[in-house]
């Protein structure tokens, strides 16, 4: 099922320059002139941004989602898709976005998808490096993400460090991600 993963740029103007993340290459770019996004901010993105700005509004993680619904078949399928995203890597950002646009809804919500992804072998070893792959895979496989989720890519300015995370229904669904609050959202990815 194809559903294009759209983008909305959220440039950050600072002093006389601006910072933005290129929606096609995924690179963090510094421009010497001010940059604004003339398009209307979609409601879904505006709602999610409110939770980024005030993380204390987010629903706290109470407990890990149950592993009851994770069959071996689901995990194998998930692992295959994860490997494709890994192979594409963060260097092929647009190709990764397109791959996530081919939806494969095997989880009811993104919290369950995230918990299952966290159990994959490469995630256990390199989880800190695979935030983009993890979030794109969660977006691709979660049924609820299509209606309620927004994937953000952000930067910890003035460093070049970048991070990807999801806000869905007023919640950041990855219980193991403590870093997301450090990053300023600069690109939003969402399905219509």
């Amino acid at each position, binding site marked *: 099922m194809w559903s294009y993963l759209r983008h909305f740029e959220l440039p950050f103007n600072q002093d006389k320059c601006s910072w933005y993340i290129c929606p096609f290459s995924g690179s963090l770019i510094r421009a010497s002139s001010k940059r604004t996004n003339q398009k209307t901010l979609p409601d879904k993105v505006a709602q999610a941004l409110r939770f980024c700005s005030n*993380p204390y509004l987010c629903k706290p993680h109470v407990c890990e989602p149950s592993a009851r619904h994770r069959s071996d078949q689901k995990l194998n399928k998930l692992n295959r898709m994860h490997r494709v995203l890994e192979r594409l890597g963060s260097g092929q950002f647009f190709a990764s976005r397109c791959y996530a646009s081919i939806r494969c809804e095997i989880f009811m919500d993104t919290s369950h998808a995230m918990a299952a992804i966290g159990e994959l072998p490469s995630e256990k070893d390199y989880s800190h490096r695979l935030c983009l792959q993890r979030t794109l895979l969660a977006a691709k496989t979660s049924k609820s993400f299509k209606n309620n989720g927004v994937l953000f890519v952000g930067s910890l300015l003035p460093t070049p460090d970048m991070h990807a995370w999801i806000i869905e229904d007023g919640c950041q669904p990855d219980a193991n991600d403590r870093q997301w609050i450090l990053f300023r959202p600069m690109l939003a990815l969402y399905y219509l």
Partner: protein
Amino acid sequence: MTMNLVCNPHKSVCYFETASGILRRDVWDLLTLKNLRAANFTAHTKNMSNFVVRPDRYSEVLSGITPIPPRSRWSRTGKQWSTYSEINYQPLWNKTIEDALRVSRRILRLVDSKAIAIELSGGLDTSIIIGLLESFGMRPLLVGTKNDNYEFRTERHIQGLYEKSMDSVLLCNQASLPFSRLDDCPSHQLPSSTSIFYSHAAAIAGVCLQKQKRVLFNGMGFDGFLCDNIPNMFSSRIADLWSPWALDDNWFNEYVYSRYGISYKSGAASRYLLRIIVSMRAGKSEDLQKRWARKVFERYLPSELVRYTYKGDNCGPFIEGFLGSEETIRKIFKEAYRITKSPIFAESVVESFAANVHKNDDVTDKLILSRVSLATWIYGLARDEKIK
């Protein structure tokens, strides 16, 4: 092979002279041009890996001189140092939060409650201290700096909550970023990476002095005993890290706060309180998000700190501080180069640091901290005409 027992009963660092076997109160007279030029600058970088200065893990910067931490006892056999500590951190049974409160109340009776201030960072550790003192009916002054960076919005939220309900002074962070006002940093006897944060301490001390506060509590050391894996039987290494000298007697106290007549104390710098808290956590595994503490101290904390485990990151202020103070850093490097003739203080080094500081990698950050603190040390000595 002979064994020396070295005891420093003072509240400031003393210095052990290897050649004579004598413990000296200071080494100002050894800070000669010849000794500075012969100093081992690489050793300073190595020493920075330790949380506290301790002789058994110290590499000599000035040849034949080892700093002995305040209120600590050591034995020395050949070149080997070992602790000679009598602190008992063996777990006590059935200790509860009530025991910790009882001990805290007893300790605080020794302090004039009107003279107390607490650092307000917006994080968990200082919030625990604020909550406990509030529960004792005390109204301490809260002093801190407000950081406008995006990644500190959760800390600002907590600071805002306290600001509404308690007497608080929040300074603008811009004036007290790391690396600020290094040319004003007091001259000190050995290089210390803490000196980079001098302006923060000086700004807070200024407020305390103005508001007539003589004791300032901080959350130093809380990470150790609230996060670490605590075995049922404690190893001596853990006990050493939690000795009062590691938490209470430090560079800030010796070179900044004491000059204003202020005592800068960790809320955990009591061996009795520590023993109770570690007994309560005995057998618990590593808890990096401090979930145990959030639950145990729940009624003394804002609900946000109980339900969420957010934490800011200091790399932004580090970079902004360096770039904002580049001119001053150039000035102190120039002076350090003039005195030592060492290429590690060449002008090109500052340029390379400025080009790489934003990379936010540990190796570069450590190198910058090490070099700038060395240059600050030499600059301060030259400025105050302490070089013989």
